[in-house]
């Protein structure tokens, strides 16, 4: 982290990102409302807002969950990851709008506190089935939505780096893994709610397809990571590990190797090879998938910088990642798995090629 916080540190990428996001949301809402009015001209404004916000939020949730594995599978998706927290906050605002309109539409102006009604109303609605038997009209789907909304709120409220620092990165990341619980709750909310009154099988099929696509992407990303870890190298008698031919490291880029469960990034910069940890101090991003820009390793997730020779962020930033000793022999890079003390300056090893 730097010496001070700002509410939002705007730059060109963030403006472009948010402009695209806002345009996409407006387009999605307008399309849904337009199509709904064509199909059901009698729909009320409340119903349209309720459904448009819920469908847009559901689609956005799938996008949010897809970005992580997509970025791990293909670097071209990395720009989507850059400002994912704004997607999350927008998702929460859409879900909140849906929740507020749902409470007003279905739970206000009754003889019960609207918030109490959200959790207990299912006990008051009945329907008659074919044989004349009276049964509950629907399952209690509202609590699932309320619980998901609470998780989205906590995630949106703690999206600023202040929370990352003061809750600790591990706790913060664990807290934000709650998005998977929220995803399950949202699907239960939709399945026990809206799907009960829809006769078409298209909607459950779409819901399941969305889940299958997300599960497939995460599985593919996990397999890719497992392959990297399975190819882990063993240390030689001198403690150095063969990291492969130097030629496979492009200038300004890194290759990532796995040694005893830890991932190291070997960088090629101005004719020398450097080795650092592959874990960004910010959110644990894979720095080895980034580039060296203006002499600094740049994490592909949020652009955090580290100097390749000592792992230190340039002033006024204070973050440091570990460096490792490297040597080059017969065209192959060798790296020592044991990290140097934080901030240790390493000269790197000459590649033998032009700087």
């Amino acid at each position: 982290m730097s010496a001070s916080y700002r509410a939002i540190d705007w730059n060109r990428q963030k403006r472009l990102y948010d402009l695209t996001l806002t345009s996409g949301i407006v387009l999605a809402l307008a399309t849904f409302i337009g199509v709904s009015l064509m199909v059901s001209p009698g729909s009320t404004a409340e119903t349209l807002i309720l459904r448009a916000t819920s469908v847009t939020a559901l689609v956005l949730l799938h996008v949010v969950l897809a970005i992580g594995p997509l970025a791990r599978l293909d670097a071209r998706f990395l720009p989507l990851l850059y400002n994912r927290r704004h997607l999350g906050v927008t998702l929460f605002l859409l879900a909140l709008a849906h929740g507020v309109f749902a409470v007003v539409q279905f739970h206000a102006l009754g003889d019960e506190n609207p918030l109490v009604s959200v959790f207990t109303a299912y006990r008051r609605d009945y329907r008659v089935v074919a044989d004349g038997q009276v049964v509950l009209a629907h399952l209690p789907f509202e609590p699932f939505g309320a619980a998901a909304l609470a998780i989205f709120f906590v995630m949106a409220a703690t999206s600023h780096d202040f929370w990352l620092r003061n809750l600790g990165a591990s706790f913060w990341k664990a807290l934000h893994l709650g998005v998977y619980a929220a995803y399950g709750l949202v699907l239960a909310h939709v399945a026990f709610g809206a799907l009960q009154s829809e006769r078409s099988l298209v909607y459950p099929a779409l819901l399941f397809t969305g889940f299958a696509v997300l599960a497939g992407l995460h599985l593919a990303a996990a397999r890719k990571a497992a392959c990297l870890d399975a190819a882990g190298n063993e240390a030689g008698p001198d403690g150095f590990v063969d990291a492969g031919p130097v030629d496979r490291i492009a200038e300004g880029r890194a290759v990532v190797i796995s040694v005893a469960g830890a991932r190291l990034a070997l960088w090629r910069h101005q004719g020398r090879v450097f080795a650092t940890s592959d874990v960004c101090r910010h959110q644990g991003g894979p720095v080895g998938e980034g580039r060296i820009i203006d002499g600094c390793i740049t994490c592909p997730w949020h652009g955090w910088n580290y100097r390749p020779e000592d792992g230190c962020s340039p002033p006024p930033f204070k973050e440091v990642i570990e460096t490792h000793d490297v040597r080059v022999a017969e065209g192959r890079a060798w790296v020592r798995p044991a990290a140097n003390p934080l901030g240790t300056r390493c000269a790197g090893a000459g590649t033998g090629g032009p700087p």
Partner: protein
Amino acid sequence: MVEIVRIGLCLLAAHIAAGAAFAVLFHRRGAAAIDPATQRTGWGFRLVITPGIIALWPLLALRWQRAASGRTFLGEPDAPVAPPRLRAVHGLAWKALAVLIPLVLAAALGWRPRDPEGGPLPAGLSASPWATGSRRAETVHPTTPKDGPRPD
């Protein structure tokens, strides 16, 4: 059931009220005590972190209290994440979803009414608001007790 929900909502309201009071105090003293980087920050920053302070004030209160005695809470501020552990939790979450979500969808499809036009409801019972578009007319029904009647 209704009483349990009411008690839960009262506890939530108390948590929010205490969090709002804590947020005022935290902005005046606590933030700078636990994180020097919050000094010289503006109203925009304070506004952005306030909802989180109100929600998670017990964690911040503990952190503030520990910081006053030179101890830490939830680890060192700059401690790095542990990717292998996170990957393991991540994998566990997807395994759980892979089992639960098909079950939820199957249960929802199984529960779905096959014949919603079974006939009119007996007097005193309210229909689903999804069928009527609003709960308003049903919840003010004078014959509907607060916890709702039960079908025989």
